[in-house]
């Protein structure tokens, strides 16, 4: 069936099988492979994207559910390759990533946190990250990155 939605601010119209997951549509059909799939039980959070402004797990959502909506992936965080979102800069500056696999989901989740809570403390960040697993960093520099990214987002707004 045909669906239309906004993907990273660009209109998209695609034919999908109804059983297609949003993560598969984004990765396989639309070739935006920044959204990763790290588990099959909706826990790791590598696939987190924004749908209508909210962070969701794209591996646990049908693509057809995005029909008429707005989807943003990690590729849509910065306007051009030259730019970076303040949260992307913060992750790089604070060594908030190692292998890079969880990173897109972490970024999307972190930005949603700051939208809901512009100045989160460490405990709030750690609690919010319940749905994002990282196997490399021990989370310490992710937390540090999000504190810095939130500050930069506040300064920018």
């Amino acid at each position, binding site marked *: *069936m045909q669906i239309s939605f906004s993907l990273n601010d660009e209109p998209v119209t695609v034919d999908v099988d109804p*059983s297609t997951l949003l993560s598969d549509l984004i990765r396989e059909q639309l070739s935006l492979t920044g959204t990763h799939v790290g588990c099959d039980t909706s826990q790791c959070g590598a696939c987190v994207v924004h749908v209508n402004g909210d962070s969701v797990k794209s591996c*646990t*959502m049908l693509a057809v559910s995005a029909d008429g909506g707005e989807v943003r992936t990690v590729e849509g965080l910065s306007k051009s390759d030259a730019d970076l979102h303040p949260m992307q800069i913060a992750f790089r500056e604070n060594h908030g990533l190692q292998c890079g696999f969880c990173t897109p989901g972490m970024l999307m989740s972190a930005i949603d946190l700051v939208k809901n809570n512009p100045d989160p403390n460490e405990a709030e960040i750690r609690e*919010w990250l319940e749905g*994002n697993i990282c196997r490399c960093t021990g989370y310490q520099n992710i937390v540090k990155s999000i504190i810095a990214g939130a500050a930069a987002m506040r300064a920018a707004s």
Partner: protein
Amino acid sequence: MRSFNYHKPDTLDAALALLSGNDEALPIAGGMTLLPTMKQRLAAPEDLVDLSGLPGLADVAMEGDILVIGAMTRHADVAASPLVKEKLPALANLASRIGDQQVRHRGTIGGSISNNDPAADYPAAVLALNAEIVTSKRTIAADDFFVAMFETALEPGELVTAIRFPLPEVAAYMKFANPASRYALAGVFVAKTTSAVRVAVTGAGPSVFRASDIEAALAESFDATALERISIDASELMSDIHADNEYRANLVMVMARRAVALAQQSG
């Protein structure tokens, strides 16, 4: 997952018509349980009826003394609702701790209670608060709704449309989460009204249940110390690699005491 025919009706009647008499059809709300099950190919409906286009099912409102929450209201919206926070803060608090934030952005209260996962949080609130479940056909009392593991009083093709919560004097929910899945290993919702105390336990048994000994003790004295000499029978509780039944029995009592203490604080 296996493919299916996708339907997104825009009226309740149309949704019911699609589900009626079709054994191979399933409704989907947030899909937080159904989609993982379908991905594992453990469920394979031929028709999937998406309820997200139905109007008026995601409202939160007071009707007299009753807090009414539409079945399609997402956990995040219950958690953030000023009305729920004001009238029934224990429920907002429970909703804010279901799954993770991304699950709370998709999962719905109607989907949660219709699924009746033995470790889900909402069933404990619905049962302890003596809520009524409004369906496309009738109104069902909470005591009659939760039948067994993944089983409710809903008939095939019957859909939950709203949950009606009478407001308690005080209430609180405490859970001890499975360290891996973060579902409840034991969750206890305690609610005190002018006439009674109701206590519902999730996560510990094969389905949510009321803990009558705890209720009786609290009816006599609504205080955590009233529970110190009470224990619950472990033999009916579940055992798995995370928690044996004796441990779950202990957790129920610990969570019950903590819920009472929290309810007293917030009251």
